[in-house]
């Protein structure tokens, strides 16, 4: 069946539709980080308990697993919203291409299923399964958290680099879904980047909670051990992310030169292109920024005189909004660098001195690191997704061709924003309740 019935429609609220989608993603993505990293951290704690017999690690694993279940349940519903929105907001995109990338979501559905099954067994199975079987029940949760994000990111990689089909009358034909999703050169750096982001966000947020308690005198053995696990993960993931980010940027230079030009505010194709830190893109140049000659060419192509393509290589209608993308990119890089330095400091103290840092400022920095990591995470997704505009499928379909013809988008947007506010308040309250269960009660149960 051709997509002829899906001639593009005029939608006066296209921007609101995009914002509604962006809001839903911004709410869901931090929860994905917990899906990726939290099961692994819980299992590290339980593993240490099994190896050393130390009950404090069992308490940590138990308490964290309840938080994990709560966040998973919230992630289930926010993820459901996303799957509804795909069809409700972007039917043109789905009608033309969901046979190409839909497989990714099908596989994600299965891994989500696996996660849901074993998270139930794991969290309700404390005391009821033998310690070994209980630990084993947690492993599928950790695997499925990673594979689920793998499949979704495969779809995002495809949107940024659509392959595996031919276009005929606005419809994808001659479809090769496996190679479109997994043989895609744009997929791997996104996946690894997100995987490490999961540990950075989860690790710093969890550690931040205990660092907050440090300032208030809650600093027993339980708190120290819990902070060490979470912070060790984040402190290692943050410097590693710098290396991965560099790899990602080089891939973008090759695959999406216009996005790179927007990241750096490079209006004309330049040999030996400079890199600007901070500043504002005025439509032609970066004003008030700190320029480093030839650095962009070196970073992108390992050659000081390499030619970097500018925004002028495509017509103005095909360019993303430069300042949004550039500001988001600089935010991500700036916060990421700071977190990497904080992480290296922690690693140094642990490895050289075999103890935790003792400066109060260190713990204040860890408290700030959690929310900052979330900001960097969102900024990173804004970079890649707004940088993809005006395309929903890069170079193949424009976002305005994909949007629904239905009315009422502002009403839906407003309603969703209100619901998410209530949800955020409710989650915050629930986590606080969980955290306030006294340790002794927990141990006895």
């Amino acid at each position, binding site marked *: 069946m051709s997509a002829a019935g899906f001639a593009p429609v005029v939608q006066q609220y296209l921007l609101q539709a995009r914002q509604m989608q962006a809001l839903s993603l911004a709410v869901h993505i931090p929860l994905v980080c917990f899906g990726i990293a939290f099961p692994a951290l819980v299992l*590290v704690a339980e593993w240490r308990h099994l190896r050393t017999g130390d009950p404090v690690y069992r308490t940590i694993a138990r308490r964290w697993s309840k938080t994990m279940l709560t966040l998973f349940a919230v992630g289930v519903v926010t993820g459901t919203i996303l799957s509804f929105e795909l069809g409700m907001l972007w039917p043109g995109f789905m*009608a033309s291409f969901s046979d190409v990338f839909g497989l990714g979501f099908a*596989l994600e559905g299965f891994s989500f299923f696996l996660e849901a099954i074993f998270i139930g067994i794991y969290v309700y199975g404390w005391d009821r399964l033998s310690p070994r079987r209980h630990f084993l029940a947690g492993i599928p949760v950790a695997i499925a958290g990673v594979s689920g994000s793998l499949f979704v990111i495969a779809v995002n990689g495809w949107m940024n680099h659509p392959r595996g089909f031919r276009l005929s009358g606005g419809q994808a034909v001659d479809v090769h879904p496996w190679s479109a999703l997994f043989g895609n050169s744009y997929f791997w750096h996104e996946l690894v980047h997100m995987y490490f982001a999961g540990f950075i966000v989860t690790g710093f947020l969890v550690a931040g909670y205990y660092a907050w308690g440090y300032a208030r005198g809650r600093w027993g053995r339980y708190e120290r051990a819990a902070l060490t696990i979470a912070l060790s993960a984040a402190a290692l993931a943050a410097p590693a992310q710098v290396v991965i980010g560099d790899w990602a940027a080089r891939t973008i230079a090759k695959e999406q030169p216009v996005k790179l030009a927007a990241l750096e505010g490079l209006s004309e194709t330049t040999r030996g292109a400079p890199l600007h830190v901070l500043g504002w893109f005025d439509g032609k140049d970066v004003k008030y920024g700190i320029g480093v000659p030839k650095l962009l060419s070196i970073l992108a192509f390992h050659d000081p005189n390499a030619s970097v393509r500018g925004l002028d290589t495509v017509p103005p209608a095909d360019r993303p909004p430069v300042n949004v993308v550039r500001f988001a990119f600089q935010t991500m890089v700036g916060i990421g660098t700071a977190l990497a330095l904080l992480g290296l400091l922690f690693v140094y103290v642990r490895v050289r001195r075999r103890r935790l840092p003792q400066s109060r400022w260190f713990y204040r920095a860890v408290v700030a690191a959690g929310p900052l990591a979330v900001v960097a995470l969102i900024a990173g997704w804004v970079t890649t997704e707004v940088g993809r505009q005006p395309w929903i499928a890069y170079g193949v379909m424009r976002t305005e061709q994909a949007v629904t013809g239905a009315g009422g988008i502002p009403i839906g947007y407003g309603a969703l924003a209100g*619901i998410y506010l209530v949800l955020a308040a409710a989650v915050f309250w629930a986590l606080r309740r969980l955290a306030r269960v006294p340790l002794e009660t927990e141990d006895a149960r």
Partner: protein
Amino acid sequence: MLADVPVAMIIVGLAAYLVLAGADFGAGFWTLAAGRGPQADEIRAFCRHAMGPVWEANHVWLIFVFVVAWTAYPVAFASIASSLAVPLFIAAVGIVLRGSAYALRGVVTAGRTLDRVFALSSMLTPFALGTVVGGIASGRVPVGNAGGDAITSWLNPTSILVGALTVAMCAYLAAVYLAADAARLDEADLVAAFRKRALASGLVGGAVALAGLLVVRTDAPHLWDGLTRGAGRAALAVSALGGVGTIALVVRRRFEPARASGALAVVAIIAGWAIAQRPFLLPGLTTAQAAADHTTLVALLVAAAFGALVLTPSLALLFGLVLRGRLDEAPPSPAPPAQPPAHPPSLPGRGVAALAVACLLSTVGFLVLAEPGWAHAVGIASLFGCVAATFVLVMAERPGPPRP
């Protein structure tokens, strides 16, 4: 032929969603209709308890239906989702509210507001999803981007009827299951309470279904034709037999077989709808016309087969544990005695540090400096190695008693 297989998968997914998650929605309904007094609290607590470990897994069936629909029938899915955006959004809102109330209730002892939000959203979502089915079944969703009427495509006699029927079926299934659970736990009061509710909701559900046939006859004649002929008629007969049989079994307190026959009655209705509509997905659009490329359908089947291979034993394990009561609240067991360390903590040797450094150098070489794709793969593997080795170093504690 292949083009029809995803329809079968969607029907299986919908049936599983209705039979499993539907019962969870129904349990939410019964928290609202628990009445007052101490027994009401007991009923509410029991409804909540029943959902514990299985709620998330049950919910996934809806996602399964969505992904199969959009992968296999892109244009039909996009037409449905855009025309029926309003009820879908309402269902989504219901799912969010319900899910968050659920997430909170594990943590918080019952608050009245939370209970009401939970119960009302438990009715809202099945009703809205029922109106979606009604809109599709009565042929009110044309092919195209939001081609159907924003309101009447889901607020029409068939939709309202199917919505009400869905709520009734959820309540009925929940009451039967909860009666069976209560019987397993020898809770005589609760058995009596849910037995009464199962009988009442079964009768109401049957009455709504019969009334529905009359509505369908005038509102959606093509559907009526399909339901009263051949295989469609057989499916309705099975449903009627299942419904009557379940009531008989509940009367005689044979709850375990009633679970199965109750589910059968409900599943047969969905099958009947699919049969009645065959071969059309939407007016003028058959499954063969709507189906995606052959390669996509094959890929979907391969993925589903692989998924079934992994998920069937996992689901069997979960439901095995739940139905045998292995995941029930156990009486507080004493904390296990602190065992002597199986492996007394010791500092990692120099080998781990050497490995970390070697992996770091390899990362720089293969990921940062080298260009080819295979080198990047080696570089990423090295990076993981470096992080893992350093993690061991960072986590290591000095042997001996814990420092203050």
